[in-house]
């Protein structure tokens, strides 16, 4: 019997991993290409959630689900053009400070506009309910999140590994100077990748708003976990981030099963362990510019 419950925690951990992944994927994309350590990534997640709440009362959840990530991606384009772009070549500490400040500005703006109290928001009635598989229980909504996350990951993979666009992006990650020498301007690609990464954060915000508190600091709450996933997965590795998200979800679930007070600490221990044994992260590639 105990084994069944353990297995249930493992499977549930994979579901939880799906939403760590949604946030971490965008973070990893932006870091890999531009070298921007985006501390404002969580803030964009929060903006996505607030947009979901605001738009749902006007155009319904389905509309908000489509519109919010697009609007957040649009915001990403503006931020990339106005801010990120100036920092690709400078000392990375500057982009760290920039995005740190940006995160505070966004969080405080949300607080000024919407107040500090959480905004009420629920799962749409049609998506409520649970699915029972044998003795296992899965909320229908969490399976939907899993499905969306999976779709987003496959779409991103296709874009990066199977299109002309992706080839330029991957070349840019490895050797931006060579791409420039070939007469390709990386700028539009940078903008697109930032929009994609930030849009993914917005998508995560919409998806998680019905099952977590929608409050101004929600971004800061989730950002550290996203960083941990990226570090464990290894830089520049698409599959690494996926493996790390699943691993963090499962390890956290099992830790809570056996020793709940260490639930959140488990991911940091895991990170420390991975860094000790494999400083590059699980599947980190050797990227020239990062060595």
């Amino acid at each position: 019997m105990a084994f069944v419950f353990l297995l249930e925690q493992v499977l549930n951990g994979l579901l939880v991993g799906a939403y760590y992944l949604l946030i971490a994927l965008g973070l990893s994309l932006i870091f890999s290409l531009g070298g921007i350590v985006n501390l404002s990534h969580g803030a964009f997640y929060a903006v996505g959630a607030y947009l979901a709440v605001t738009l749902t009362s006007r155009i319904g959840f389905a509309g908000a689900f489509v519109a919010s990530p697009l609007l957040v991606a649009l915001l990403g384009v503006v931020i990339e053009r106005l801010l990120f772009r100036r920092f690709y070549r400078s000392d990375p500490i500057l982009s760290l400070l920039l995005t740190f400040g940006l995160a505070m500005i966004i969080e405080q703006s949300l607080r000024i506009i919407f107040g500090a109290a959480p905004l009420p928001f629920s799962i749409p009635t049609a998506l409520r309910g649970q699915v029972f598989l044998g003795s296992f229980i899965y909320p229908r909504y969490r399976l939907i999140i899993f499905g969306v996350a999976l779709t987003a990951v496959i779409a991103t993979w296709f874009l990066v590994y199977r299109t002309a666009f992706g080839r330029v992006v991957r070349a840019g990650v490895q050797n931006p100077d060579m791409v420039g020498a070939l007469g390709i301007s990386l700028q539009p690609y940078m903008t697109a990748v930032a929009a994609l990464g930030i849009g993914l954060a917005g998508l995560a915000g919409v998806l998680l708003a019905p099952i977590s508190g929608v409050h101004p600091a929600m971004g800061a709450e989730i950002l550290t976990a996203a960083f941990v996933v990226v570090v464990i997965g290894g830089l520049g590795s698409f599959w690494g981030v996926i493996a790390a998200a699943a691993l963090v979800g499962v390890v956290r679930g099992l830790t809570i099963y056996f020793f709940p007070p260490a639930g959140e600490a488990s991911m940091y221990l895991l990170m420390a362990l991975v860094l000790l044994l494999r400083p590059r992260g699980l599947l980190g590639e050797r990227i020239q510019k990062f060595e």
Partner: protein
Amino acid sequence: MAHSDDLTRRMLLKGAAGASALAGLGMPAIVKAQSDVIRIGHLTPVTGFLGPLGEFAQMGVKLAAEEINAAGGVLGRKVELVIEDSVNPQTASAKAERLIERDKVAMIIGEISSASALAIGQVANRTKTVFINTGANSDALRGASCNPFMFHIEAANSMMVTAVGTYLKTENMIKGKKWYSLTADYAFGHDLFRVAKKFVTENGGEFIGEELVPTDATDFSPYLLKIRQAQPDIVASNLAGNQITNFIKQYAEYGLQFPITGFGFDTAVAWGAGKGNFSGIWPLIWHHMVGTPSSKKFVEAFTKKYGKPPENQSWGDYNSLKIVAQSFNEMKAADPQKLAEHLRKGAKFDILKGREGYFRAYDNQMVQEMYAVRAKDSDKMKDQWDIYDPLGSVPGPNEDLEALAPPKDGICKMQA
């Protein structure tokens, strides 16, 4: 396109460190000072996981200041608030000192975190300045850590437990029942669980699960699976702030049917959960449906000013300032040194409840009525604020008010 060579993985680690630092930063709110006014310090967290409550606290105290000044101020002088975000115990302590020494405030109102309240209480004692705690529940503040200058309008954990426990007993939810509890893993949660467990076991209930939940947990699914595995009769929350919002949302998501209750609660976290998520029986120090004339007046004035009803946290900060103003008027002097003495003399105050409250000299705890509420079905809600039905107040009309207060066990020793 050239990248600087020193960009390494370490940057990302620094990023992770920065990300966690981000959670701890606050923003100061400045209200400038003028002479010939009575300056009152207000210090409470408005960022972090208690931030939503802090915002309601500020709304409450600002409304009280407005009303006092509109009615002629205190002894002909206007009340001026100096409002700050207390952030964490270290910052709270530093800001309390600054308020007292630089801004020359007559006294300090505020706080929600028990750890920060302890820090402010120590500054208050050292500088002989009155501090009225409006939101920190830990019994230790009224016990081993009590001091003559720290007053508590907020209920102690044991009062919250007895208030809701009285109703749980009448609903037959304790005796012979199997309990499963989730507890916030910090001072407040530990203290609350300790008194809750004592109450439940003394009344014939049994804990089959007692889990500690880190305050930064946002996903509760592994806990919910464990609860489902344990099949308890009652699920009890000793969680705090945004944790409760996340917990009740996900409890509804997993469709668990075990009745919920909680020993610590604030209305804002349930308002923030959304339709169809909130359930169970919960204790409150005050709620906006309390029907006494002064309570109705407060709710009306608050709703008019802010467009939403006051939360229980607004109640504490609003009443504290009113109490201080009334005391200075009664003393016929805005004398900070004598305020503590005056408050401890047992003067009664209208605190918007059926019966008046007073600070008892033993531990400076406000002795008062408490309430319990039951979550409403979502189809019966009139608006987004109408989420529960009042169950009544304790102690009953013929019982001694002190029946609810923490036991006078001699642990609190006030230095003269």
